[in-house]
Structure formats: structure tokens, C-alpha cells
């Protein structure tokens, strides 16, 4: 245990598995490279553990049992004190006064009442340790309390919502054990977030949660293609019929017992207001599912704060938010209810093993000159769309004749050029949804072997048969984009073959710097990149493994 509250776990140690299980409830896995995994103790993590029923004594006992060296006393005290802060305040239902904030310890209530951020959210004082909460401020209050370091336990319960029968097609398929565990973990916790790697079947966890809720459900997804895929998956996996599922997107505005809405339409702003947020109120929803919760846009957060009496399930591959709003996810959606590292699920055979390769190309001298003289803001674009990348991409595609290949990039002209060279269709944000779906279907069926896609394909596009992804450019150094893109090729293959993920990078430019930053998340998850020189591939010194 380190002084900055990270825990180092030696993977090869005989007790490593046992220890990992013991610390998982309260420590967050920060990175999982090959020898030593790093976990971190954070207030959020410790509160998550408290919410799940673990007490400080258990946590301290675990730390002492597995630590190789004596654990500094101050750290143990800190753990105990942090954990003791959770639940000193409770949001609950009072038989007379309705929603109240109740303190086990009146001095804590005094302290938070003195905060300028909290006071306006509260109503009249009932007694020493109870104060009325405006029902509409339930979420804002919890948000503010987490910021003050006194997270409130929300035991006010949920409205059941409008009942709606939803069953799983049990005779056709069974959810995997971890999916059932995740759905049940969520259900018992009331609200919260399930963290599963891309390709591990988050949709199924959603379906299982709906079957537990037996109520009308609002599903929020990133874009229209993802919305259609959710619908198809629900039709296939559950007893729901096409009439029961509505789509609320730019194209359609259907409100049905199960409605799938896109973030994009929800956050469309007209004359300073968000007209589509009323979807939240359009029905008496019993469950709200947030897909890709790490991308949840700010207006949705704000609205989510107002609907704290409804059950909320967040699904994501990573809690890492590039904007650092992990605390809002904790207070508004709920604590983390289930988490499984990628490598674990890969080891169980539910996602394909992946071979990550960084291919380095060199700028020719003339381009180097142009690059050196370019303005800083143009440099990434220049280096990321270096012409040399075309040749090597072609070469890699040629090496994978038997596989289906996705070429993913950021810049439209680069993608167009790639499409031309590879003689492959190109899908971008401008491609009509109908055309996109047609191409994806053709790719799934094997009629199209190579697809060139822009970042529209980053999320929730189900292409199970893609075995090779070649990334030629990206959104600068976004770590979660890298994870999403790798996720595209991680669906298990029928023949069990490994997936290949290539990242083509221009040496000695900002492209290489960004690539390094992007790779950090995956490297931390145990995916190590091999580096290959483009020259070696051209020279035939390299074979597809």
C-alpha cells in the first residue's frame, strides 16, 4: 500500500486472485498491466463499498491481511474516517413530512446546513436531526453533499412506474453468469452503474434489468444506429414486440412502453431550452437506462437530478470521463454496482483475445519540412493523415484477406481517399441512416469485406464479425475512444480466432504523442502494444500471427 492510497497487487503471487476478490469491492482498478496491478482507494470507491454493505473493519482487515509491508496507521485511520462519512446523512421518506434529510449525527447536519450550496435545497427544519427536502432537489442535494464529503444514503425508495410485462426469451438463450450477476447487483442496489468491457454484452444486462423491473423503460443511447441495434437486440432477447418499442430520435418521435432516445436529440437546444427533455416526463417510467454513461452530456445530468425517484441503470465500459465528472455519475446515477476487468472476461472466453499493434510510418523529408513549418493546430491533422498511411493500410488489409476489416479514421478526406484506394464503401456522419444500416448488414453477411468508417462507428455499432480494425487517425489523445474502437473487434469469433487492432502512427510527430496517450488506458487494462516499423511490413519481415 502506497502513501498516495494506491494498492499494488503482484499478479504472479500465489494469493493474487484471492486478494483481488477481497479488495475489488472497495478499491478501483486503475491499471492492469502484466506484472503489477494498481488499485486506488478513493472516497467514491470507499463509499461505493459502504453502499454495498462493507464496513471499515472488513476493509482494514483485508488491507492488513494482504499487505506485504505494515500499512501506515494514518492511512487506516483515513480509510475508517472516510467510510464513516457515508450514511451519516440519509435521504428518506418521513410519514408526515415526506422527503427529508435525516442525520444520525446532528452536528453533521449543522455542518452541511451552513454550506451555501446545500441550504437553498432544503426546506424547514423538523427537529435537531431532520430537515425537509424539496422533492425536486433530491438529486441536486446528493450532488452537493458528495462535493462536501458527506455522501447521503438514499433510502427514499423509488416509484414503481407504470407496470409493463417484459420477459426474457428463456427458451432460446441464457444470459452469461456475469451478466445475470451484474443485473441483480444493480437491482438490489436500486440504482447504479454496471461496468463491462465493450463486447461483453451490456445490452443484455439492460434487458435483464428490464425483466427484473417489469415496468416501462426509457433507454438513452448515443446515436440512432445504436438505438436501432438496441431495438433489434431487445426484439431478439425479450418478449417485447416491435409495437412496444418506440424510437425517439431526429427521425422519429415515438413514445411507447419501451422508448429508446438518443443523447443527440435530447440535448438539441431551441431558443435556450431543451424541448425534448420532456420525454423524461412523458410517461411514468419505472426504469431509465443510460448507455455509455461516460459520455452522458451535461444537460442530461441536470435533468437526471430531477428524476431521482426513478430507478436508473448506467452502462459503460469505463468510468473514466475525459471531463472528470465521475462524482456526478456517482451521486446522480448511483454507485458502481458491478465491475469486471476486460482481461477477466477475455479469459472466460466471452470476448476475443486481441493482438494490438502500433505500426510506425516515417514522414518523407519533404513532408517533414511541411510539418515543421505548419501551425501547431494543423500539425496533428498533417501527421495523422500522412499519405504514407494509405500504403501501409492497403498492405495490412492485403495481409488479412480472410478477415473482415474496419478502417477507422477521423478526417473525411483521408477516409474518402482510403475508400478509393481500398475500393471499400465509406460510412461517415453524412451517410444516411438507411444506407449505413444496409452497409453494416452487408458487412455482417460477408458481402462487404472492408469498411472505412468515421467516428460514427465508435460506439454501439454491433459488428460481431469484424476481426481486424485499423485505426489511422483519432480524436487527438482520447483514451476512451481507443477503448471503444478496440471493442469493435472484441466480439468473440465463431472460430475463436484472435482479433487484430492496428494503430497506424507517424513517427516523431504529435501523432505519436497522442497515440501514446490513447494507448495508456488499454495498456493499463493489460493490452500491450507491439511496435512494428512500416518498412518491415513492406519488406515482408513480418507475418500476421
Amino acid at each position, binding site marked *: 500500500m502506497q502513501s498516495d492510497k494506491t494498492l499494488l497487487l503482484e499478479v504472479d503471487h500465489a494469493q493474487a486472485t484471492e486478494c483481488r476478490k477481497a479488495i475489488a469491492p472497495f478499491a478501483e482498478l486503475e491499471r492492469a498491466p502484466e506484472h503489477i496491478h494498481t488499485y486506488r482507494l478513493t472516497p467514491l470507491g470507499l463509499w461505493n463499498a459502504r453502499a454495498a454493505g462493507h464496513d471499515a473493519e472488513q476493509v482494514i482487515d483485508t488491507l492488513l491481511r494482504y499487505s506485504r509491508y505494515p500499512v501506515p496507521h494514518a492511512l487506516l485511520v483515513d480509510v475508517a474516517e472516510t467510510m464513516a462519512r457515508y450514511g451519516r446523512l440519509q435521504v428518506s421518506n418521513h410519514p408526515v413530512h415526506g422527503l427529508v434529510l435525516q442525520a444520525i449525527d446532528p452536528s453533521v447536519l449543522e455542518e452541511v446546513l451552513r454550506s451555501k450550496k446545500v441550504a437553498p435545497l432544503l426546506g424547514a427544519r423538523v427537529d435537531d436531526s431532520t430537515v425537509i427536502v424539496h422533492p425536486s432537489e433530491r438529486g441536486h442535494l446528493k450532488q452537493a453533499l458528495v462535493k462536501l464529503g458527506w455522501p447521503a444514503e438514499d433510502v427514499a425508495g423509488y416509484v414503481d412506474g407504470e407496470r409493463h410485462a417484459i420477459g426474457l426469451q428463456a427458451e432460446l438463450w441464457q444470459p452469461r453468469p456475469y451478466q445475470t450477476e451484474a443485473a441483480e447487483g444493480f437491482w438490489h442496489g436500486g440504482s447504479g452503474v454496471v461496468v463491462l468491457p465493450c463486447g461483453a454484452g451490456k445490452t443484455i444486462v439492460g434487458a435483464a434489468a428490464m425483466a427484473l423491473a417489469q415496468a416501462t423503460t426509457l433507454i438513452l443511447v448515443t446515436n440512432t444506429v445504436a438505438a436501432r441495434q438496441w431495438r433489434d437486440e431487445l426484439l431478439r432477447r425479450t418478449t417485447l414486440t416491435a409495437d412496444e418499442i418506440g424510437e425517439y430520435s431526429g427521425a422519429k418521435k415515438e413514445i411507447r412502453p419501451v422508448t429508446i432516445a438518443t443523447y443527440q436529440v435530447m440535448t438539441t437546444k431551441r431558443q435556450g431550452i431543451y424541448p425534448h427533455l420532456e420525454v423524461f416526463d412523458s410517461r411514468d417510467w419505472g426504469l431509465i437506462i443510460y448507455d455509455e454513461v461516460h459520455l452522458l452530456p451535461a444537460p442530461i445530468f441536470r435533468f437526471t437530478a430531477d428524476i431521482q425517484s426513478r430507478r436508473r441503470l448506467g452502462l459503460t465500459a469505463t468510468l473514466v470521463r475525459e471531463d472528470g465528472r465521475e462524482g456526478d455519475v456517482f451521486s446522480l446515477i448511483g454507485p458502481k454496482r458491478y465491475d469486471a476487468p476486460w482481461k477477466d472476461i477475455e479469459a472466460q472466453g466471452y470476448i476475443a483475445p486481441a493482438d494490438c499493434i502500433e505500426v510506425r510510418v516515417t514522414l518523407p523529408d519533404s513532408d517533414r519540412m511541411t510539418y515543421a513549418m505548419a*501551425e501547431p493546430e494543423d500539425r496533428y491533422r498533417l501527421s495523422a493523415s500522412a499519405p504514407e498511411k494509405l500504403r501501409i493500410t492497403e498492405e495490412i488489409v492485403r495481409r488479412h484477406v480472410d478477415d473482415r476489416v474496419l478502417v477507422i479514421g477521423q478526417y473525411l478526406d483521408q477516409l474518402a481517399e482510403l475508400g478509393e484506394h481500398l475500393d471499400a464503401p465509406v460510412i461517415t456522419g453524412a451517410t444516411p441512416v438507411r444506407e449505413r444500416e444496409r452497409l453494416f448488414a452487408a458487412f455482417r453477411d460477408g458481402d462487404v469485406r472492408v469498411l472505412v468508417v468515421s467516428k460514427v462507428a465508435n460506439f454501439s455499432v454491433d459488428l460481431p464479425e469484424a476481426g481486424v480494425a485499423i485505426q489511422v487517425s483519432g480524436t487527438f489523445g482520447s483514451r476512451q475512444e481507443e477503448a471503444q474502437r478496440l471493442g469493435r473487434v472484441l466480439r468473440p469469433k465463431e472460430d475463436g480466432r484472435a482479433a487484430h487492432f492496428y494503430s497506424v502512427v507517424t513517427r516523431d510527430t504529435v501523432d505519436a504523442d497522442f497515440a501514446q496517450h490513447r494507448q495508456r488506458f488499454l495498456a493499463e487494462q493489460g493490452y*500491450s502494444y507491439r511496435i512494428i516499423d512500416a518498412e518491415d511490413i513492406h519488406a515482408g519481415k513480418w507475418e500476421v500471427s
Partner: protein
Amino acid sequence: MAMAAPRSLADDLRQREPESLGRLLRRRPDLLHPVPTDLTALTTRATTGPSIARCLDSLDALHLHVLRVATTLTAHDAASAEAIVGEAAETLGPDAIDDCMLALTDLVEAALIWGTPHQLRAVHAVRDQVAAVPVPRWPRATLRASEQHDLSDVDERAALSARAALAQVRDLLDDWSADPPSILRSGGLSLRDFASATRALHSDWRRASLTIEVAHAARLVADDHEESPHWVPTDHYDVWLSRPPAEQWIELVTAWLGLNRLASLADEKTQVLSTDRDRRAIPVLRRQVLDLLCAAPSGASLSLEQIIEILDDRQPRRAGDLRALTVDATLLEATELGLTGAGAMSTAGRLLLASLTGPPADRRLSAAEVATALNAALPDDIDHVLIQADLTIIAPGPLAASPSRTLRLLADVESRGHATVFRISEGSIRRALDAGWDAAAIHAVLADISSTPVPQPLTYLIDDTARRHGTVRVGNALGYIRCDNPETLSAAVADRRLRSLGLSRLADTVIISQSPAAELIEELRAAGYAPAAESPDGDIVIRRPEDRRTAAPRAGTVTTRRMTEDALVDAAVRSLLAGDRAATEQRGATVVGPASKVDLPSLSSAAILTALRTAIADNRPLWIGYADTDGSVTQQIVDPIRLAGGVLTAFDHRTEQVRSFSVARATGVAPLTTDETDG
């Protein structure tokens, strides 16, 4: 003593045995400075407010209680010991009678109460000062273990902390060797430098401040007294580094014990290394806390509250913010320095503290014992690390000093504890290249230090960085940029970001600049080039600055002087008794000189000093020839007591008083013959 009941305190003191007077002077040492001429003077001094206040400060709660009862009962008339003790124990309980009696006897000895057991009186001046004394807690606070630990566990924790403390000092001073922080005009370390040291040590304010203050107290870092002064590691630091860890530790802890500041009482607003924070009482208070920890049973930890409770009982008048802060700081600092583990005194700590109170001759022997205890508790150093594909390097335990310093150059520390996580990056590799390493050397040292294969991405990173490193060279003396590649220079000339440097192309491969080389390097690097400085003969200049050193200040004299020196007390008692005889017997005004004179040879002052020191050590009287203010030389027999600052304090047989002699005015000294000593 078949004498009449004393009529006054002076009378009482006059009736006391010399030993009893000696005990009085020992417990109230302020009465000795200067030595009063006779008992009347002593009595006057002993009944002044300040002297009484000092004495009361050292008393425990029970003593103060008994004293208050005594002042109340004797306000108008004398009271008997039984009456005082009875009244005092009344509120406490019958089991307090014995303790109250002992306290009363002690108060008489301290000259706060006087008289016979049947007729006791409290000194008047005491009354006001004890009027508000509360009834003490009964039974009294005692040392109870707040938690009992296994001694081996305590020792292991302490040893690990001790090692971590040494590593922190090393890391701090290695950083400061290259880049010493400047000294503020007021004498401390600037807040910015304090903050950056805290960050670099991956520590917090309190612990970083402790490291800095202790390094300074141990003379490992000091003012370099340059025109713009800096805190620079001293030459003594190099000596310290060469010593085995246990000796390094003993040196640090010893320095800490004498420190006049609360080293760890710091936050982001504290001016570290500033003498403004000095309080002379701190070393004494700190020692009291440590002595309590030593007094507790082995393996027992004491809580902060408990220590304060005991100190409040032992010296209630000294209670206050400073003491509370000292207790808090001392507990933290003792833990961080590895004196205690799990809140209990370690074996090595106990031995070290015991050795520091013993005679100096024993210390070397004790140091060996301390080292043995410390080494026995220390787990073995780790000399290998694990290198991972995400470019982290992990030392899974306490890392030996040499690989630790290598890695701190090659990589940045990401997290610290008993294990260390380093992250290697382009920047950190460049730093190593700047310090004169090459790619091959880095590969070799990593392969050597790693217990697992070096991951391929790291190999690439090193080669890439090395390949680019130094392809652009910058001249210092001429302010030029030279590069074998004309395009690079074209790019640099065209680069808008470099416009401020006033670059102009001299030749295809050379640019000259109006800016100094240092600025050039900075700007070029910011613009994404990887420049290296070049010497006039074309070699790459190794950019790592020389480790800077300054002279260590002289070690302070060891301040382990015992509270009162026996010799001084004895002499003072003799002086008092003689003075008293003189005062009471109205002896003749002229004091007769010694009967016989000896032939005193003139000696050099060095010889005189040697003779005086020998006489003090042997506790023997001698003849001294002394030039008076009028220049006449007299010879007298003295008992030398103390020699300090060129002044000899001695008991003068002629005047039967303790007086001072300036060594400069001594003309010669000679030992006494046996019969003279007897006479």
C-alpha cells in the same frame, strides 16, 4: 537538631544540613545563577515571585494541591504537618495520605514551606500563585498501554519508516544539489520552493517540512553565504551519504532531538527553515514525550490524549498550546523518523535515547547497539524491479540506494510507499541523455535491474528518444544553432514561435541568434525540437549541472549538560555557608591571604587551560596566580568548577565564595601539595 523552632525561612535554611541545601539548589537551579553570597541572599532570591513561579512550574498536580492547602491553613498561624496532610487528603480519599505527606516533605525541601513538623508555614509569596489550583484527579493518571503490540512488529514498522526517512532526505538533497532553492531575506525557504519540494517528495506539508528541517538540523544542507544565498547541500552531506544507514539514522534523530522547532507543524503557509518558529522549550517538551514512550511497557503504544493527561498531571502549570502542539508533532515525527512503530517505542529508539543521556564515552558503544537493533528489524533491500509495458517500473519493496538513484534519473516517481512506482517517459529519458547517458547504457542498466524482460515499447521509446536527442545543437558562447540538416534550420528560421529569438541564417547548417543559449534551448524545445548544448570544440555539452556543495556549519557543542553540575552545587553550598558565617559572625573586614606562598611559574595560556581542565576533571584544588584589575598579582587556592568561554568558575578558599576568574588574567597555576589540600 536540638535547636529552637526557626523564626523565618532564613533561619530554617541556616539550620539545614549542607546536603539538604545541596538538594534545594539542585531542584531550583535558578538560585545558583549567580551564586548568592550568603543564606540571607539565598532566602531573598528564593522568595521572589519569578523564582517561585519557576519552581511551581516543575511541580505536579498533587504538590500544587498540598501547597494550596498549606497556604490556606497557615494564612494566619502555623499549622502542623498532620493538619495540612489531613485537609489535603480529605478531598482525595484516605489512600492519598501517604502521597500527600511525601509531597509536603518535598515542598519543605524546596523551601516553599518552612518550620518544624508541628509548626509549618508557607512562604508568603506562594499564596497568590496557588490560589486557583484545582483539586487534582485521584487516583492519578498512570501509564497505560492504549494498545499492546508485538515488539517485533513495532520494530519492523519503525525500521521501515527509518529507511523511508533516509530515502526522503536523500531524494530532497539530490534534487537540491542540482537546483538549490534560494534563501528568503527573512531566512526561510520560500513557499513556492516548499511546495515544489513537497510535490517532488510525494509527501504532504507536515512530512516534507520534517524532512527539510531535519536535514538542516543535521547540517546536511546549509546557507551557502553567497551574494544571493541558497540552501545548498553541505560537504558533510557527502560524508553522511558514505555512512551505513544505521549511522545516518542516528545522526538524523540526534539532530532532531535538539531541534528548537516543531518540524512537522506546517501547512502551505509555513515558512520552513525560519528561526521565527524557534522555541527554546521545545527540546525539553519533546524529550518528555519520548521519555513517557520509553517508560511505557515494551510494545505499548500511548495515545495523544493519554500523554497530554499525564503531562497535565505532572506539570499542570506548563499545560498550554505549545505543549499540546509539541506532543502532537512529536508523535508524528517520531513515527516518521522511525523512532516509534505503531505508536510504541522501538528497540533501536529506546537504545538511542538511553545512550544520549549517558556519558559521552559510552556513546560509540551504544551506537553499535542501536545499529544492530535497527538492522535486525530491517527487511532486506530490494535490488530488482519489474518493468511493464505501460512504461511503469515498480520496485515491490524498499529499494537499495544505488538503483533508487539511477531510477530517479531515468524515470519519474509516480507513487511512493514501501514500494515505489516509477514512470519512464520521453522527458525522463531525455534527462538521462542530458546527464551523459547513451541509449546503450540505459538499455544495459534497465536489463540489469529488471527481473522481467524489458518490454518492447520501452526499448522503442529509448531508441527513438536517443535517436532524436542531440540532432540539433545549440552554441553557448556564440549564440548559434547548428544542424547538419538544412531543412531543420529552414524550419526553425521560418518558425513563428522562434521569432523572438532573432534568428538569422549564417550558412546552410548554421543559424546565429541574438539570444543567450539557455533561452534558445528552452524556446527550441518548447517548439518541439530536441536541441543539445555544444562546446566550442564541437562536443555535446553534458547539461547536468555540477552537484553544488557548501561548507557545513560547525557542529554545535553537545548540549547534554546535566541540569545542575554536582561540583557547582557543592561549591555553592560551601560558599553559602562560609558567606553566612561571615555575615553572622561579623568577621574582620580584611581577609587574610594564604599562609604560605608558592613559586608560581609563568605559563602560557594553553598550558593554563590544560592544567585547569585536568583539575576540573580530577576535582582537585590548585594554586592560581591572578592579576587583579589594578595589575597586582595575587596567589590563591581555588577549587575549579567550570571552564567556559575563557572564564573559570571556582570556589575561592580565601573569600570562601564562588567567583569567576578570567583565564586571560591568570599568570600561572600549580597543583597543591598534600598538606596544603588538607589544610
